[in-house]
């Protein structure tokens, strides 16, 4: 038994030191492409850290977003930078000792505070356990996200929408000269896309009882769309105008409608327990669709237009 605990501790120590070392390397590397690849590897190790901290829901979200979307977003942005910009010498760092000292003091202070926190703090876990039966789902994280603190999720969907509005108001439509798609990429995408859609549906359904839910499912679905865009499918021509807008607002609109209805009856987003399960599923389906389309549109980087619209 003693040996097992020691081995787990060594694993944790190696993972922690690996994370810190990777962060240092990626932030101080001369070459920006290297920094991006290291950042993707950093996300991989973060997922392992979530696993060690008993947070499988967070690990799923990190895997769905870190492995698929973040890397693709960074690669696409890097490709748009002027080429001489990609490996510039780092700033002269000789004069930063005062800053280093100050940050070291801040880190030491924070470390001391965390160290002096009590060993055990139940937080809200008892309240969640007591109310889980009336929430309509069995996974505490889903219950918090869509029932107990549903307003957080509502506002989060609004933030996603705002980010997309920002990108659309800035975004520059550029016709990148793309190489023709080879048979290997086509086959790969043909195999992966249906599976990605299936896994998204599975995660959405599983979210009620096990780790999973709207965020993870939405991110996986977004990854499928990003893959199709990368493989040259004209998704940006298909999803335009009213259809696109409807999908973008499906999540927030369902949420707001439900918030209004519950406000008439009792309290903001307090569902009647006998309907809670169904309402959460409805919200999750709408939120998954909106999250997926919003994230894919963020990757696209400009507002797709119909042919009729003036450019």
């Amino acid at each position, binding site marked *: 038994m003693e*040996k*097992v605990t020691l*081995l*787990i501790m060594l*694993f944790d120590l*190696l*993972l922690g030191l*690996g994370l810190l*070392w*990777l962060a240092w*390397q990626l932030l101080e*590397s001369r*070459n920006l*492409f*290297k920094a991006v*690849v*290291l950042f*993707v*590897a950093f996300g*991989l190790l973060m*997922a*392992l850290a979530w*696993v060690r901290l008993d947070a*499988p*829901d967070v*690990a*799923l979200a990190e*895997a*769905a977003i870190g*492995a*698929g979307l973040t*890397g*693709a977003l960074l*690669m*696409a942005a*890097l*490709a748009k930078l002027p*080429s001489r910009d*990609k*490996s510039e010498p780092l700033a002269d760092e000789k004069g930063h000792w005062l800053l280093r000292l100050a940050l070291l003091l801040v880190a030491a202070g924070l470390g001391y505070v965390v160290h002096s926190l009590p060993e055990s703090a139940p937080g809200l876990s008892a309240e969640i356990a007591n109310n889980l039966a009336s929430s309509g789902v069995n996974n505490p994280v889903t219950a918090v996200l869509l029932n107990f603190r549903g307003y957080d999720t509502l506002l989060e969907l609004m933030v996603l929408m705002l980010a997309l509005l920002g990108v659309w108001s800035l975004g520059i439509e550029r016709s990148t000269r*793309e*190489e023709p798609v080879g048979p290997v*990429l086509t086959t790969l*995408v043909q195999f*992966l896309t249906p*599976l*990605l859609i299936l*896994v998204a549906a599975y*995660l959405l359904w*599983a979210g009620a009882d*096990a*780790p*999973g839910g709207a965020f*993870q499912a939405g991110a*996986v679905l977004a*990854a499928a769309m*990003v*893959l199709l865009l*990368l*493989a040259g499918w004209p998704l940006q021509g298909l999803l335009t105008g009213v259809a696109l807008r409807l999908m973008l607002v499906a999540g927030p609109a369902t949420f707001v409608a439900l918030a209004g209805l519950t406000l008439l009856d009792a309290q903001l987003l307090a569902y009647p327990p006998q309907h809670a399960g169904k309402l959460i599923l409805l919200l999750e389906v709408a939120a998954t669709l909106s999250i997926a389309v919003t994230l894919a549109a963020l990757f696209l980087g400009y507002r797709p237009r119909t042919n009729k619209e003036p450019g």
Partner: protein
Amino acid sequence: MDMLYLGVAFFLLLNLLAGLWRVLRGPSAADRMLASQLFGTTAVAILLLLAERFATPALRDVALLFALLAAVTAVAFVRRIGSSHERQ
């Protein structure tokens, strides 16, 4: 068995961190991308071992996601950056 799962997982984590040397050294962008692809596979193996050791089936779903999405970053690299982007 517990000891073995943990031991192999620890060994694979060491392997992964050693492989980072290739990302740091390059020389080409394609080399770095390839190395990070290998990390994805190693992470899948570690997750499956931990799923068995700690009896947490959800970790298999995390591994499944890594396996499914491993190609996305690499395809983004091939389609957007290509391998000539930097040669030293």
